[in-house]
């Protein structure tokens, strides 16, 4: 529970600004009545604390604020509920985005116990995992709602959407979130014991390790200074690293041409100007 609170709080800190007086104008700006949020009370008693904490921390309210720059032609529903499985999914325009309480339990189990030598903490890992899954599924939602053509594989494209967004808030946010997105896929791979039968390559999703390396590459490509240690430590092989800047440019090009027309510039600036990440020491 303590860990869960940490995760939620860490997310909350990323998404929300301190509600200082001088921020009041931008707070008012970040409204969007096309986004509908809901916390559905879970049936399973062990998920009740998650539900309570999410509500208390206003996680969805903050997510709504974060997404307020979207010019939406349809309602965007975001629902947090019990799914019966560790998951999150885009259910189409009518159902919208589903975030499962179960995912937090999973994130808690697989998060590292100790901070890494690079100063990457357990809270960061949980935050990064949560944002990865949420923004990935929202990526599917964006492609759907705006009819955005995806020329590559949509699952990779949704990962790119998540990674691209996380790289747009400066080095501090990138440093604390993108490694978690990469980490979650390493952990999935380990939880499978590295087993990957031939037919599974037919899946629309990439191999867990491909997804992990893609996030490492997105991080390095968007900020080679902050993430130089990926290459120095061998986490990201040089052969791939040399291509990452180009891959980041490709994502920027795709985002500018297909997403930017659907984003309110003034609101986006307000979102980007927010101080998203106050110190979270001690969480």
């Amino acid at each position, binding site marked *: 529970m303590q860990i869960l609170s940490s995760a939620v709080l860490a997310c909350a800190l990323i998404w929300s600004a301190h509600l200082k007086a001088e921020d009041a104008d931008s707070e008012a700006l970040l409204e969007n009545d096309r986004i509908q949020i809901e916390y559905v009370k879970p049936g399973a008693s062990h998920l009740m604390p998650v539900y309570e904490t999410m509500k208390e921390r206003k996680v969805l309210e903050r997510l709504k604020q974060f997404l307020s720059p979207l010019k939406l032609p349809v309602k965007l529903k975001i629902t947090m509920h019990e799914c019966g499985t560790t998951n999150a999914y885009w259910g189409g325009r009518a159902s919208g985005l589903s975030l499962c309480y179960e995912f937090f339990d999973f994130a808690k189990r697989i998060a590292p116990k100790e901070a890494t030598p690079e100063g990457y903490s357990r809270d960061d890992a949980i935050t990064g995992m949560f944002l990865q899954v949420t923004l990935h599924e929202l990526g599917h939602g964006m*492609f759907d709602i705006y*009819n*955005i*053509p*995806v*020329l*590559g*594989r*949509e699952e*990779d*494209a949704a990962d*790119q*959407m998540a990674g691209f967004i996380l790289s747009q808030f400066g080095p501090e946010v990138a440093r604390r979130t993108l490694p978690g997105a990469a980490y979650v896929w390493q952990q999935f791979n380990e939880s499978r014991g590295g087993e990957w*039968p*031939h*037919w599974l*390559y*037919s*899946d*629309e999703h*990439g*191999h867990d*390790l*491909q997804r*992990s*390396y*893609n996030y*490492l*590459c997105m991080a390095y490509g968007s900020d080679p200074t902050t993430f130089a240690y990926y290459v120095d430590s061998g986490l*990201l*092989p040089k*052969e*791939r690293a040399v*291509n990452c800047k*180009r*891959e980041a440019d*490709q*994502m920027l*090009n*795709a985002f*500018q*041409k*297909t997403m930017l027309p659907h984003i309110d510039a003034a609101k986006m600036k307000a979102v980007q100007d927010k101080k998203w990440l106050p110190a979270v020491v001690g969480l």
Partner: protein
Amino acid sequence: MIRVFVVAAIMASAASLALSSASGASRITCKDWHIDQDWKLDRIDVEYVEPKDPAYSAIYDDLKQRQILEELQQFLSAVRLPNKVLVKTEQCDQSERPYQPGGPVTICYEYIAKLAALATKIPAGGTTPRGVSREDATIGAVAQAVLHEISLVVFDQQRIPVWGREDDAADKLAGFLMLQFPDDTAHKLMNGAAFFFEASDRTWTGSDFSDVKSTEAQRFYNYLCIAYGKDQKAFGDFVQAGGQQASGGSSNAFRDDLLPQARAARCPREYADFKLGYDTFIKPCLDQQQLEKVITRVDWLKSAP
């Protein structure tokens, strides 16, 4: 023979695409999406570089004699590009030389040699269980390799907004073009393109997965998927029989050379999504008048066996 098939495939693609564009008048222009530069035709230069290693002389002579690159150049004359690009065949001292922005495009003699070697896994005069002959494998693989590289040039020069990994998108565009062929030829081409990935001996572990390209198995299934996605009847034989996937039995129950049903069910949507991308971003950058000219030359290609 390879030449004729590849070129016929490309020409047929062009013809079919021109027809489809005539029916649905698109209001989007090339410049709506892409950089505002001077777009011209005939931006492709070609070159056969003589190999240092005499082991590749036969391949060099063969490609030159078949005029593969000149044929490709003809087809690409309908593609408007802002910059010149060189397409060459060369000894690379590695099996592939990945495309970098600005080019050139290099088809390595080593790669062609590898294709030829893999094709010999198929008994002469026979086929694989899926029905791929040696000839299909070679033709499809060459078409795949060339069209994949050209797709990267188009993405690069036209600044196409590619979501997803670029090499997967290039495979999809290559497959999409091959699928514009009449059913029978498209079937052979796709079968052949898929075979090369199916036959690969490479196993992937650990940091191998950092490769910018997808695994051979993924690319194999992606080719089967785009084909089945376009036409479930014509490519019904690319998919496992019903129940195989659902049984959940041992992996022996599956045929690795066919698409599992779970993926197959999603392929029509994947194809439709790609087609939307093609119609939106790529088609507006083809010169329709030039395409017509290219198509009128199909006649002299009908000497295909």
